[in-house]
């Protein structure tokens, strides 16, 4: 092909279609390969993250099993499935952890809640939220110790009517300038405790067939 026909070919719709096609095919191939290569490590990293979060709400001394291996799924009062991580010592359930979600100022607040078999809060940690930085983000343990106030509490302590922020006549602090965020977290935790109370028999029943 001499120079003129080449430059004519370059001007034509055929070359441009071909160019776009080749570009997109190469991009798609690269992405498929990258996805396949990274899928396994990413899943592993997420499992590590989950384990790290669970370790914050269930003390490692309470269990001798892999928390991610012994999960059960139950429907909550609204029919939403909740995945429950169970801490086992021998074949006895010593603690459970599950995720609760509150409706915050700017979207969902995901909280992982760890409860001892007797219904006492072992710990709660915020996993993800979209609250205002510098205001609502004090619910994160990295930004403040507000969330630690729930440790050791249960559905009867304080009584259900006082499971609220102080502005609503409850026992828990709100932040100056942010009430919606802590209110959402308190409500979510209360909901989690009620969920546990309703399903306590199932949740703390010894699993017959331990698999790990």
């Amino acid at each position: 092909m001499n120079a003129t026909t080449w430059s004519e070919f370059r001007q034509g719709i055929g070359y441009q279609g071909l160019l776009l096609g080749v570009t997109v095919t190469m991009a798609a191939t690269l992405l498929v390969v990258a996805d396949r290569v990274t899928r396994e490590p990413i899943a592993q990293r997420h499992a590590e993250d989950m384990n790290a979060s669970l370790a914050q709400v269930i003390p490692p001394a309470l269990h001798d099993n892999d928390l991610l291996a012994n999960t059960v799924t139950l429907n909550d009062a609204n029919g939403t499935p909740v995945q429950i991580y169970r801490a086992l010592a021998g074949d006895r359930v010593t603690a459970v952890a599950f995720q609760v979600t509150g409706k915050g100022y700017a979207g969902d607040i995901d909280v992982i809640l760890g409860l001892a078999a007797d219904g006492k809060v072992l710990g709660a940690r915020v996993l993800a939220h979209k609250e205002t930085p510098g205001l609502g983000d004090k619910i994160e343990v990295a930004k403040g110790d507000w969330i630690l106030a729930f440790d050791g509490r249960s559905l009867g302590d304080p009584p259900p009517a006082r499971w609220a922020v102080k502005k609503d006549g409850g026992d828990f602090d709100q932040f100056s300038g942010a009430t919606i965020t802590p209110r959402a977290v308190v409500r979510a935790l209360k909901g989690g405790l009620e969920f546990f109370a309703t399903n306590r028999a199932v949740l703390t029943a010894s699993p017959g067939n331990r698999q790990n």
Partner: protein
Amino acid sequence: MTTALKTPKGIQWGRITRDGLWSNNVILSQTLALCPTLAVTGTATNGLGMGLATTAVLIVSNILVSLIRNVVTPEVRIPVYIVVIATLVTLVDLGLNAYAHELHKVLGLFIALIVVNCAILGRAESFASKNGVGAAALDGLMMGLGFTIVLMVLGGVREIIGSGTLFSGAALLLGQAMSFLELTLIPDYRGFLLAILPPGGFVALGFLLAGKRLIDRRAMRK
């Protein structure tokens, strides 16, 4: 866009550097990339993180676009560049998530925002597609640094006014060794919410833009 760079003979180091850092700065002159800019500059640390991630992508995308500049015809250049940049960002996102997970947890938010950063397409279109690989890489670096500096200043100003701190969370982004950067400038500060929210970003950006014009005008008079 006001880029008036002629295809240079050899790399015009000084010109490219000055353009990127000041006279054709992504934010202060081109006023591009305002969406990610205003969204993440609540703190100086976030500004720095976004800036560095963008710089890395900008350098690589400029190199790639410069490499394929003679194959791509003007009629289809925009879709080709968009596919190249989006693929690149996705690869970086997947790679970081899998192999540098701690960094990804901090930068993850910014990486997704880079795809919609029109400054990257802007540089591909107005510089990389017309210049050699070396010049394009330098342009990416300098434009990225200029972007990073402005983001950091904007974040710093908003952070000081909004929450009385500077570089909070720097240890998470840069490692524990850099935790000395985290300063509390105004102890017991009640905070000024407007500065942290997007409107505060617009106000602070307005002052920065005005400031640059003022300095440029002074320089013109001399």
